């Protein structure tokens, strides 16, 4: 018999929640200064930074909360936080 107690949700359904709207400061990536170390991608608490086909690191602004952790930890100082105008 199938159990039907509790609540169920589809894996990764949190994607419906676009946390990018929380952002006040927006990280801006300077791909000239980037050394491709991948620190930003590893330490992003959202996991919203990915590499595009050219190997450039791009955050998904739909989910980026603008915490600034990537800009703080980037060893090449290639990421700067700028106040976002909405």
């Amino acid at each position, binding site marked *: 018999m199938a159990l039907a107690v509790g*609540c169920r*949700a*589809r*894996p*990764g*359904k*949190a*994607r*419906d*929640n*676009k*946390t990018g709207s*929380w*952002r006040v400061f927006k990280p801006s990536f300077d791909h000239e200064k980037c050394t491709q170390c*991948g620190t930003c991608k*590893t*330490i*992003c*608490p*959202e*996991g*919203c930074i990915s590499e595009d086909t050219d190997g450039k690191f791009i955050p*998904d602004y*739909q*989910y980026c*909360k*603008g*915490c*600034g*952790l990537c*800009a*703080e*930890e980037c060893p090449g100082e290639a990421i700067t*936080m700028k106040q976002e105008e909405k």
Partner: protein
Amino acid sequence: MVNKDLELFDCGHRACGGCGAALAARLVLKGAGTNTIVVSATGCMEVFSTPYPETAWKVPWIHSLFENASAVASGVVASLQKQGRTEKVIVMGGDGATFDIGMLCISGAFERGHDLTYICYDNEAYMNTGIQRSGATPYDASTTTSPAGSCSFGNKRPKKDMPQILAAHGAPYVATASIAYPMDLMQKVEKAINTPGPCYVQLHAPCCTGWGFEGEQTVAIAKLAIETGLWVNYEMIDGKVTKVKKVVRKPVEEYLKTQKRFRHLFKPKRQDAEIAAIQAIADKNAEKYGIDIKLKKE
């Protein structure tokens, strides 16, 4: 093998910007891989990752109560074993669920010897309900149930030594890690889930809201905790410490100054005796684990 590109903890969770625990969850799953079942205890991570009907987890995940996560996991492990399945079971609990509320069930699961890995993300208080002290809250930290004021310097008791308690249960693998060293963290999780028997990993995960600092400082503060000797990254195999992260130690003041929960030690008056007491805790850690790098004298 640790797969750094594997994302099993998805975007859209409702953690604060710069959350240490959210980062810990991501890194743990990178180390654990897809063949994993997660059992969560109640806590901030459970709340921000799974507000119904959403979930940030992309592996099978179950939550029952605050205190019984390791008992639920014991059942899951027994059932998988009976069915001949190979999934690894991870329990994720905060320090409140681990050090205080879940203690009885954890002790039971470790004593029975189930093949599970208990991971505690330690943010040193009950953050979800509004920063109440737990058994993991460090000496002199101000929380809402141990407030600093004219009669008190905050939490009066030192942090409970949970890794030693579980090592005393005969756990084959016990480790501490920090989000400041992601590769080390992922490797320790991988090692723990591949070690048969009950294993324990304790992760230092700073909480910007509870400790009082800006979200961008999370990793820097976790690193400072290690550099001052207030958090020690080590590995214990069969109860013996086999690997320790060594550092050139900084004074504890550099760590304390960064957080509002220790602000009363500097304002309105500098409390030298209290700072010295915290320095003594760091010195004791350094001596116990031998973390000091001896610089050659020129």
